[in-house]
């Protein structure tokens, strides 16, 4: 082997360092129009009137589109995974977050596009808005989503459940119960390249879409679904992106630009300004996480109850997926035999939240790891040894019954301790991820352990 493991130069390094990498904004097509959007100034409002006729008549304006122009306006990014559609491409009768696109224009130049947006006549009737997920089920909470305050489609439940073992036993047995609440904030992806699309209508009727998407086939599917065309009517050109971090998994600019190009019969480019990016691009979700851990005085994690509220913003987008992933990983890098997890996707009048680096699990790490440090502090134990003692090991099972085959909690923790000169007891420094036995396999962990060779337990745990 020569290439694998080698410090080979970047495939695109020379292009990057000579300014020759071609991003969407660098593609030049003659006759390209400029797109701009009319966005909601309100967090929550009914649209009582919209009239685009003055904008359409402005010299230099080539297309104006609203919800009425979209073949299938309401589509869900995760319909294939069973998440029903709830989000309109262009707002129709109602806006649910500030910055939500209501209409878009394509014009010969940017100043005309700005004028056209300003010439669209629109009237709103403001409605009460909700921003605190903890208040989503308050009796007086405003009604902001057609599904109600929380996403209701986790099978028969309105929340994602993870249950394993006997959590009542664990809390009964515990010497100490440590409770904490953790609140990661909304975060911008903030790539240097803002959302952008350039759409060229071909003579054949196909659309060529220059895209900054992180997910070419995913975006192809989303565009084709909104336009109600087969996949061969749209060609995406991309693969080179000026930073994504999850925000460009959303198909943000492409589809509306397609509608404008189809209506104008001209190439159209829509590059979001940085202000639009900060105002209306999706964010990492804010979360509210409450943990109760049942622990023994000698540092065994006996059981965990965890409640998570995930702020979806105004529409579901990927939130049910992210929350499920969060629930699957809610024990972190540790084996906890008895767990009871409930997670809710709560709607607010914020911009829809979406995937971002570590989606669903970053929030687990932020909550669970600080909780682990707290537990160690409360029990008067070393935070290193608490983690090593409860570390994932080969043959342990996760909260959702997956058998661990190559866990590395122990090697990474020991390597970090060694690097900073942390002195640990010999029983810890000698640890490996090998299967539990002896003192590392107390009675309460025996039931969760999988037989040798098993990959998934259909029914693991104490019960």
């Amino acid at each position, binding site marked *: 082997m020569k290439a694998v493991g080698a410090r080979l130069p970047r495939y695109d390094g020379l292009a990057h360092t000579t300014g020759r990498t071609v991003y969407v904004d660098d593609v030049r097509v003659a006759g390209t129009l400029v797109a701009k959007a009319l966005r909601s100034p309100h967090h929550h409002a009914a649209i009582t009137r919209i009239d685009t006729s003055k904008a359409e008549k402005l010299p230099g304006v080539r297309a104006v589109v609203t919800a009425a122009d979209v073949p299938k306006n309401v589509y869900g990014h995760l319909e294939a995974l069973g998440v029903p559609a709830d989000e309109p491409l262009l707002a129709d009768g109602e806006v649910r977050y500030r910055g939500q696109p209501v209409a878009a224009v394509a014009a010969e130049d*940017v*100043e005309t596009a700005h004028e056209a947006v300003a010439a669209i006549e629109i009237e709103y009737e403001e409605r009460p808005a909700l921003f605190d997920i903890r208040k989503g089920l308050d009796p007086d909470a405003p009604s902001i989503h057609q599904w109600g305050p929380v996403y209701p489609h986790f099978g028969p439940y309105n929340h994602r459940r993870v249950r394993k073992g006997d959590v009542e036993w664990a809390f009964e047995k515990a010497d100490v119960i440590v409770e904490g609440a953790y609140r990661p904030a909304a975060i911008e992806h903030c790539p240097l390249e803002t959302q952008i699309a350039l759409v060229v209508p071909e003579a054949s009727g196909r659309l060529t879409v220059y895209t900054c998407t992180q997910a070419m086939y995913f975006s192809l599917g989303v565009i084709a679904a909104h336009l109600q065309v087969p996949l061969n009517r749209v060609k995406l050109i991309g693969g080179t992106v000026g930073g994504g971090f999850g925000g460009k998994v959303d198909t943000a600019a492409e589809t509306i630009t397609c509608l404008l190009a189809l209506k104008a019969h001209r190439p159209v480019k829509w590059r979001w300004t940085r*202000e639009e990016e900060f105002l209306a691009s999706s964010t990492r979700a804010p979360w509210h996480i409450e943990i109760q851990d049942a622990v023994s005085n000698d540092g065994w994690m006996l059981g965990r109850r965890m409640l998570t509220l995930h702020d979806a913003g105004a529409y579901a987008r990927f939130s049910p997926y992210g929350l499920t992933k969060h629930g699957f990983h809610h024990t972190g890098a540790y084996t906890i035999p008895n767990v009871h997890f409930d997670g809710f996707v709560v709607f607010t009048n914020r911009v829809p939240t979406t995937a971002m680096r570590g989606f669903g699990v970053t929030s687990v790490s932020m909550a669970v790891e600080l909780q682990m440090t707290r537990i160690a502090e409360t029990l008067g134990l070393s935070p290193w040894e608490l983690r090593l003692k409860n570390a994932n090991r080969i043959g342990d099972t996760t909260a959702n019954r997956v058998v661990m085959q190559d866990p590395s909690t122990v090697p990474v923790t020991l390597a970090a301790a060694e690097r900073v000169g942390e002195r640990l007891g010999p029983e810890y420094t000698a640890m490996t991820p090998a299967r539990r036995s002896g003192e590392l396999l107390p009675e309460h962990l025996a039931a969760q352990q999988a037989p040798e060779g098993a990959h998934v337990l259909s029914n693991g745990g104490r019960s």
Partner: protein
Amino acid sequence: MRASDTELAMPASAAEAVEAFGDGRGVTVFAGGTILMPEITHGRYPTGGRTLMLTRAGLEGITGDGRIEIGAMTRLADVAASGVEPLASAAGDVADPEVRSQATLGGNLCAPPGAESPRGDLQAALLAAGASVRSAGAGGERTDSIDEFLGRAHSEARLVLAVELERPRRAAYLSLRRAHAHSYAVMAVACAELADGIRVAAAGVGPRAVRLAAVERALAGGAAAAQAAGAATDGVTPHDDALASAWYRSQVLPTLVTRALERLQGG
């Protein structure tokens, strides 16, 4: 209106600039452009049909020794290199070297309050230094104290020509900022010992910088730094914005004042 429709004037001297400015009605003054250019790019051309670009008006330069005059178009990079404290430290604290190479003293002085964060990073230093502002406009040229000028700012149109100040005996400047060149400082405190005593001013505690008169009185009465700083929030009404809350500003202002005064006194 469209920026492309504006009538652009580029006066070649101070006199031409004053004439072109007239009474300032319908005129947008373009100094360094660090605030104005993004507005133009985003289709928000501010006011009026005429833009007065001062780039070639010869309004830059730092002259004098005891009594110092700094031209309105002097770049912050040059102010920062001037050694005239506390102005130099304040100028060096603005944004990053590229912005400082373009932003001007006059532009900074006339910057309207930002929607999301404070602006006018130099105001506290100018207040502390007891500067005066020479400007033109309706009624002709005149010189105001910085306190008067800021008090009337945005209620009348003035073309700033220069700032004048006596070099303070001692001065100190301290800002509280996140380590981000692109972010405005949360708060800044400047203090200077002049012939008639110590002046202390703070930026970031209101829409524009203010003198901390109660602190100055306490110092005049012989109070030690920390004791005088206890009065820092007297008459100050901090605000919430994207950088910090009013609560935070109230809590930390005395600390910042103490540290600035200790720096002033400790050398």
